[in-house]
């Protein structure tokens, strides 16, 4: 993957570059503020941009603003927002244009490198990578709780893992069941959420968005 990193802390920036290089990914640019990020993305056309939320000059939500702008300008680009905190309002804003190619993870998640690389790979392919905390928050903020009332506890578990962006195989591994079982659960979820069979990937995103109340 070709990756651009925007992170104002020099030690985190260096650490990320090193980690990604270890797994054979190419960090084409690593910058420290939002403006340089836009320029780097325009210049290098990366597969994924990893973006810290708090960057100079105000250290509030610069990264979030650029992430949203980049999503509108470059639909193919995977955008991973990477922060010390998960905020419901940011998550909702980020997902307002759909969940394809969007990620929002806590910085701690780099500690589990396999998961982290997985997330980046999914984003590059137009998938989703939401922190479990994002999922919990959006669910608790849930404006459409009732729509999900019909789901069984196990179906909800599967849907929560789908919302994080995991594949059927990964979901099967987490729940320690067979992939076939996961597929059955998902079919049942689609039916209960009244999502007619069309393109499978599309239905997945729709189910997730409905689940998150968006």
């Amino acid at each position: 993957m070709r990756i651009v990193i925007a992170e104002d802390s020099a030690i985190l920036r260096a650490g990320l570059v090193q980690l990604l290089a270890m797994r054979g990914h190419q960090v084409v640019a690593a910058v420290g503020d939002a403006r340089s990020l836009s320029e780097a993305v325009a210049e290098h056309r990366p597969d994924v941009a990893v973006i810290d939320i708090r960057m100079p000059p105000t250290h509030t939500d610069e990264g979030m603003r650029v992430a949203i702008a980049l999503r509108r300008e470059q639909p193919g680009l995977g955008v991973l927002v990477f922060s010390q905190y998960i905020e419901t309002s940011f998550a909702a804003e980020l997902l307002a244009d759909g969940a394809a190619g969007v990620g929002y993870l806590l910085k701690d998640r780099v500690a589990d490198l396999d998961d982290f690389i997985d997330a980046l790979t999914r984003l590059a392919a137009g998938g989703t990578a939401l922190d479990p905390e994002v999922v919990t928050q959006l669910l608790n903020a849930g404006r459409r709780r009732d729509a999900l009332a019909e789901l069984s506890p196990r179906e909800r578990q599967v849907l929560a893992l789908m919302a994080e962006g995991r594949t059927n195989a990964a979901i099967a591994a987490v729940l320690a069941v067979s992939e076939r079982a996961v597929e059955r659960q998902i079919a049942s979820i689609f039916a209960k959420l009244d999502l007619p069979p069309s393109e499978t990937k599309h239905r997945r995103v729709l189910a997730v968005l409905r689940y998150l109340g968006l």
Partner: protein
Amino acid sequence: MYGLAGLPLAAAGFVGIVTLLAVGLVFIITPLGLWIIALAVRSAQGLGSLHRRLAAALLDEHVRAAQFRPAPGILGWRRGVLGDPVGWRAIGYLMLKLPVAILGCAVTVAMLAYGAILLSYPVTRELDGSVFRSGSGAVRHGLSIAGLRLDSWPAALAVSVAGAGLILLAPWAIGKALMPDRLLIRGLLGRSWTSERLQDLQETRARAVDDATATLRRIERDLHDGAQARLVALAMNLTMAREELAGHGSAGELARTRNLVDIAHQQTKEAISELRDLARGIRPPILDNGLGAALATLVTRGGVPVELSADIPVRPSAAIETIAYFCAAELLTNVARHSGARSAAVDVTGPDGLLRMTVTDDGTGGARPGDGSGLAGLASRVGTVDGRIGIDSPAGGPTVVTIELPTHA
């Protein structure tokens, strides 16, 4: 100037305020009465400050204005106005001002008018009709006062000099005549010692509250850029160490090393998570994006589903937002811990100059300050900015806690 300008204003003020007060007293048995009296007090305050500015401009008499600080809300406004000593002192001033203004005006007019008349005596004695016959029967022009005949040129000149004297003395005499007015202005329109002290205390307290907020924000930022970033970097390094170890053989020493790194890795993740909660507890950085955004995350963190509605047209100061946020956090903790509620609602509105937050739950009720629910702590926190907290929690529920804060401390 002041001596002349003061009188009409004083008369108008006197009549206006007395009328309003009288009407207010007549209507006192109706709800309208208190409003009219409040209006009188507020107008008196306005007129008082007009007088104060006039005195500053024309008399060079500068007194510091006492500020009116109403409690939030329309009823708070009325209560504030009726209980405001500044307004009542202004009424006192307007009542006493009329006689004082008459005195000032009289002295001013007398000194200047008589001065002018006497000064011009040598000219005017020929013109006006005051004539008398001298002992010799000749018609003479001039005044005759108590047998003293002022008909000669030297006498006329002396009168003129006296007139000039009056005019020269006028500023001094007017100054003396306005002295009571000055004393009234200082005593009734300025700040009394206590009100001045009160104002100083309010100002320093507001500064202290702002400082505290700024300090919290700085600590949170230092943690974010310092310890939190460093720990994440440490976690990254441990991740890399694990990767390196994974690629090597499996001698017993290597296994132990890997185990140590795994433990360090786990501890780092826990430290990051604990530090995040600590930093958020100091001051959630999302408050920079407004109270509504901060509450949006807060309401998802408790065990009870919370309906949030926030309509805050004008952003309050950072200190007020922080206080409101921590009040909501404390109240939602109570809801989750003590109320047994199945759902709750947080409603924030910002009618003019006020931030009103209502936290409602459908629990068992019976909450009161001092029962370990932290309500007493909330009240004192809210009190630091003259906010108010109302707790309505009958046994059996529901519980409604309303917090009102001024938007700027």
